[in-house]
C-alpha cells in the first residue's frame, strides 16, 4: 500500500532527473512507474477476494506509523473496496495519461512527468489516508503539481484557468481544514483525547448546530471538487485549458476525490447532519445533471463540452450518495468508475484530434469520419457510453442511482432522469458535428497510432466489461457500501419512507 504512493513519487523525481538528458527517458520512466502502480493495485484486487471472506469488516489492510504525536497525528493508511477501486482507476488513468502526452508534450518533458506523477501519487494518497490531517496533506499535495500542469503546458488561457482552479480548490480546502480542526477539538472536549484518526473520530458526539456547520465545511470542499452546482465554475476552464493528460487526470481522478470524500467522510462522520442535509444535496445533484447536460449541448469547444458532461455525470454521483441506500451507493461507485474511464477516453480523443487539427472548435471540424474511421468509431463508442446506453458501464451506474433515488425522492429522480434524454442530445451532437457532416475545411488526418489504439482499446474493453459484467466492481465495494447503508441514520431514512 505504501508502494502505491511511493512508486509515483519516486518515479516523478526520477523522470524529472532523466528528462534533463533525453525526453524519452522521462516518458518511459513515467510509463513504467504508473504501470507498476497499476499492477500492484490489480494484484491487490485479485487477492482481495480471499481476504474478504474472512469477514474482517470492510477494511482490507490497515497500517499506521506515528507522525506528529504532539497532535495525535499518525501516518495512517488503510483501504477498503472503495479505496481499492479508486486506486486502480487512478493508476489506470495514469498509464493512459502518460501515453496521451507522449507526443503532445514536447517541452520540459521531465518536469511535466514529475508533476503528472506527483498528482497521481497525491490522489492515491487521498484514497488511502485515514488520518484526517494526512488526508488533508495529500488533498493539498495534489493541487500544486496540477496547477503547474495547467499553468505551464495548458492552452491559450492557461494562467487564468490554473489560478481559478487553484483558488477554488485551495479556498474550499482551507474551509475543510477548519472543519477538520473543529471536529478534532469537539472530540477532544468530549473524550479528552487529541487525535486526527478517522476511526476514533467516528461517532463524535456533536450538537446539532456544530454537526451541521462542520459537515458543511467538508461538504463544500468536496462539492467544489466534485463539482456540484453552484461550485462548478472552475471546472470548464480548468478542463479546457489543461493539456490532455491534465484533463484526463482532472476528470478521471481529481473529481473522484470529491465523491470519495463524501462517501468516506461526510456520511460516516456526520450521519444525522448529512441526513438532514440530504434533500438539498439531492436537489443540487439533480439540478446539476440537467444543467450540465444543457450547457454541454450549448458548447462549441469540444473540450468544454466534455467538461460540462462531467458536471452532469457527477450529479448522478451526488444524487446517489445522498439517496443513501445500498442500490444508490453502489450506483454512485459504479458511476465514478465508469465516468472516469469514458470521460478520460473522450479527453484522449479530443486531445488526439487537437494534435492533428490544432483546433477544438466543432464549427471548424466536420466530416472527419472519412479520413479517420477508427478514431470516429471510437468517438462514437465513448459518446454513446457517456449517454448511458444499456450494455455499457455508465448505464449500470446511472440505472442503479435512479433506482435507489426513486425510493427516496420521486421528484428529483424524475428530474434526474431527464438528464438521460439531454445526454443523448449532447453526445450525438458531439459525434455529428465532429465526425459527420460536410468536411468543409478539407481535413485529411492521420489515423490513430498503435499507442492511441492500445490505450483507447483498453478503455473500450473496460467499459464493455463494466456494462455486461459489473459484478466484480459491485462486489469489491459491497462491504463498504453496505456498512454505509446500515448506519443508523440511513436506516432512519428508510424507515421514514415506509
Amino acid at each position: 500500500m505504501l508502494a502505491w504512493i511511493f512508486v509515483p513519487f519516486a518515479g516523478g523525481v526520477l523522470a524529472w532527473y532523466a528528462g534533463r538528458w533525453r525526453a524519452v527517458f522521462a516518458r518511459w520512466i513515467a510509463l513504467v512507474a504508473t504501470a507498476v502502480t497499476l499492477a500492484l493495485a490489480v494484484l491487490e484486487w485479485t487477492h482481495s477476494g480471499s481476504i474478504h471472506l474472512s469477514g474482517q469488516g470492510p477494511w482490507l489492510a490497515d497500517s499506521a506509523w506515528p507522525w506528529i504525536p504532539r497532535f495525535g497525528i499518525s501516518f495512517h493508511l488503510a483501504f477498503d473496496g472503495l479505496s481499492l477501486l479508486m486506486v486502480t482507476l487512478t493508476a489506470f488513468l495514469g498509464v493512459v495519461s502518460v501515453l496521451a502526452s507522449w507526443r503532445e508534450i514536447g517541452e520540459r518533458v521531465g518536469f511535466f512527468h514529475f508533476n503528472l506523477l506527483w498528482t497521481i501519487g497525491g490522489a492515491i494518497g487521498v484514497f488511502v489516508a485515514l488520518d484526517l490531517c494526512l488526508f488533508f496533506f495529500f488533498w493539498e499535495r495534489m493541487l500544486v503539481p496540477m496547477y503547474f500542469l495547467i499553468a505551464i503546458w495548458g492552452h491559450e488561457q492557461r494562467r487564468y484557468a490554473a489560478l481559478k482552479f487553484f483558488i477554488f480548490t485551495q479556498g474550499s480546502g482551507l474551509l475543510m481544514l477548519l472543519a477538520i480542526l473543529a471536529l478534532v477539538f469537539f472530540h477532544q472536549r468530549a473524550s479528552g483525547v487529541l487525535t486526527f484518526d478517522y476511526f476514533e473520530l467516528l461517532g463524535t458526539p456533536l450538537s446539532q448546530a456544530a454537526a451541521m456547520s462542520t459537515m458543511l465545511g467538508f461538504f463544500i470542499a468536496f462539492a467544489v471538487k466534485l463539482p456540484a452546482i453552484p461550485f462548478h465554475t472552475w471546472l470548464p476552464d480548468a478542463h479546457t485549458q489543461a493539456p490532455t493528460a491534465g484533463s484526463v487526470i482532472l476528470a478521471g481522478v481529481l473529481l473522484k476525490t470529491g465523491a470519495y470524500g463524501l462517501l468516506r467522510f461526510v456520511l460516516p462522520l456526520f450521519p444525522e447532519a448529512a441526513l438532514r442535509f440530504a434533500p438539498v444535496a439531492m436537489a443540487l445533484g439533480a439540478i446539476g445533471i440537467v444543467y450540465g447536460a444543457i450547457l454541454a449541448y450549448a458548447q462549441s469547444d469540444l473540450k468544454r463540452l466534455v467538461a460540462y458532461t462531467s458536471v452532469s455525470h457527477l450529479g448522478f454521483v451526488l444524487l446517489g450518495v445522498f439517496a443513501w441506500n445500498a442500490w444508490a451507493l453502489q450506483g454512485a461507485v459504479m458511476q465514478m468508475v465508469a465516468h472516469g474511464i469514458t470521460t478520460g477516453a473522450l479527453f484522449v480523443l479530443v486531445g488526439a484530434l487537437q494534435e492533428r487539427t490544432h483546433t477544438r472548435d466543432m464549427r471548424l471540424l466536420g466530416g472527419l469520419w472519412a479520413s479517420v474511421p477508427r478514431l470516429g468509431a471510437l468517438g462514437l463508442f465513448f459518446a454513446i457510453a457517456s449517454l448511458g446506453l444499456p450494455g455499457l458501464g455508465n448505464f449500470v451506474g446511472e440505472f442503479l442511482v435512479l433506482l435507489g433515488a426513486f425510493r427516496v425522492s420521486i421528484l428529483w429522480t424524475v428530474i434526474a432522469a431527464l438528464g438521460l434524454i439531454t445526454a443523448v442530445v449532447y453526445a450525438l451532437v458531439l459525434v455529428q458535428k465532429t465526425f459527420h457532416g460536410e468536411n468543409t475545411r478539407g481535413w485529411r488526418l492521420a489515423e490513430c497510432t498503435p499507442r492511441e489504439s492500445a490505450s483507447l482499446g483498453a478503455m473500450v474493453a473496460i467499459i464493455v466489461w463494466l456494462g455486461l459484467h459489473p459484478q466484480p466492481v459491485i462486489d469489491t465495494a459491497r462491504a463498504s457500501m453496505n456498512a454505509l447503508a446500515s448506519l443508523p441514520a440511513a436506516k432512519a431514512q428508510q424507515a421514514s419512507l415506509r
Partner: protein
Amino acid sequence: MSFGQADLIALLPLIAVAAAAVLALLLAAFQEHARGALAVALLGLAAACALLPLAARAGPLGVTPLLIIDRYALLFMGLIFAATFAIALLCYSYFGGLNSAHRSVYVLLLLAALGSAVLVASSHFASFFLGLELLSVALFALIAYERDTERGIEAGIKYLVLAGLSSSFLAFGMALVYARFGTMRFAEIGAIVSAGNDAYDVELIAGIALILVGIGFKLAVVPFHMWTPDVYEGAAAPVSAFVATVSKGAALAVLLRYFIDVGAHRSAALTAALTAIAVASILAGNLLALLQDNVKRILAYSSISQLGYLLVAFLAAGPLGTEAIAYYLAAYFVTMIGAFGVVGAVSGPGADRASEALDQYSGLFWTRPWLAGVFTAMLLSLAGIPLTMGFVAKFYVVAAGIDAALWAPVITLVIGSVIGLFYYLRIIAVMCAPPPAAAPVNAQSGVLESGIVLAGLTVLLVVLGVYPAALIHVLHGALAGFGPS
C-alpha cells in the same frame, strides 16, 4: 545583589555576540577586505548558539532585575542567532563576495542581533527599552547602508523617524504604567494586577496600549505598517530579510512575555484591540499585496499579513498558542530569509527599482531553475501549502485559534490565505512563463555562500514540513508551562 558564576554562564550567549561585535569592529578598522569581519561574526553567532544549552542548564535565572534567562528566551535567542548567521552569509554574497570591502555591515548585524536577544530576555522596562533601541539604532545604519542609492537613504530616514516616534510612544506607555504601580518589573506589575480587583483602569490600559503602539511599529501591523514597503524596498535584500524576521520576531516575543507576565490577556479591551489589529493586518496586507509589481513590496505586504496570522496565535494565548507562535516564527524566519535571499541573488547590490520588478522574474524557471525552485518553495510555504513548514505553521495557528474558539480571526485567516494565493501564484506563474528572448537579468553568477544558505533553508523548509515532530518536540519541551494562566 551579587553576580555569581551561574549568572555569568547564563549570560554567555549574549556575551559571545557582544564580544564578536567588538572584535569585528577592531578587525574592520585594520583589515581591508570583509572576510575577517565575516568570520568573526559567524564564529561569534555559532559560539552563542553552542552556548545556549549550557545557559539553559544554568537557568531559568533572573540575571539582575533586568534580564531573565529561561528556556523561552533561549529558544528565541537561538532563532535570532541562527537567522543572523544565515543573513550574514547572504550579506557577504550580496555585497560582492571575495572582493567585498563591506566590513561594518557585520558589526551592525551583530549589534542588532544582540539588541534582539536582550529584548527576548528582558523582564524589566529598562532592558526592554535598551534592547529595542540597540536594535533600532543598528537598523538605521543597516537600512541606509547602501547610501549611494537614493532609495537607501530614503528608507533609512523613514525608518529613523518612525522608529523614534514609536520609541517615544513606548517610553510614554512605560512611564504611565510606572506611575500607576511604582515598579518596572514585569513580574511585580503582574502580581499587583492579579492582586487588585480594580487593576484595569484607564491609566493602565492606556499605558499598555501605548506600549502596544510602540511594538506595533516594530511588528509592522496595521495601522502601524506604512513604513514597511518603502523600507523593505530601499534596504539591501538581506537587510530587508533581517527587518522582516529578527526584528519582528524579537518584538513579538517580548510582547508575548509582557502580556503573559502582566496577565493582559484578561483585559477585554486589549483583546478586542489585538483582534482588530490582527484582522486588519491580514486583510490589508493581502489586499495591498495584490496591487504591487515589485517583488520586495509584495514580500513586505505579505509579511504584514503573516504577522496578522501570528497575532491570531497570540490571541489564542494558552500553551498551544505559544507553541504555535514559536513554530510559526521559525517557519516565517526560514521562509522570509529564503525569499529575500532569492531576491538578493536575482537583483544584486545597488539594485534599482526596475531590477526588482516582477517581470524581471519572467522565465526564471528555465534560466535559473534552482533559484526559481527555491523561490517557489518559499512562496508555497508563505501560502501554507503542504510539504513546507508554512503548512505546519498555519495548521498550528488555525488549531490554536479554533481551540480558543476565535472564530472571527480564524475565518479571516482563511479568507486572507485565499487572497494571498493570488499574488504568490502570480509570481510563480511569471517564473513559469517562457523566458524573454534577451535575458535582462544581470548575469551575476550564483555565489557559493548564498547558494549554500538557500539550499540549506530549502532543505530545512521541506524536512521540517514533512516531519515537523522533531522541531515540535523541541518547542514543546522549551515552552512547557509557558502561557497565561
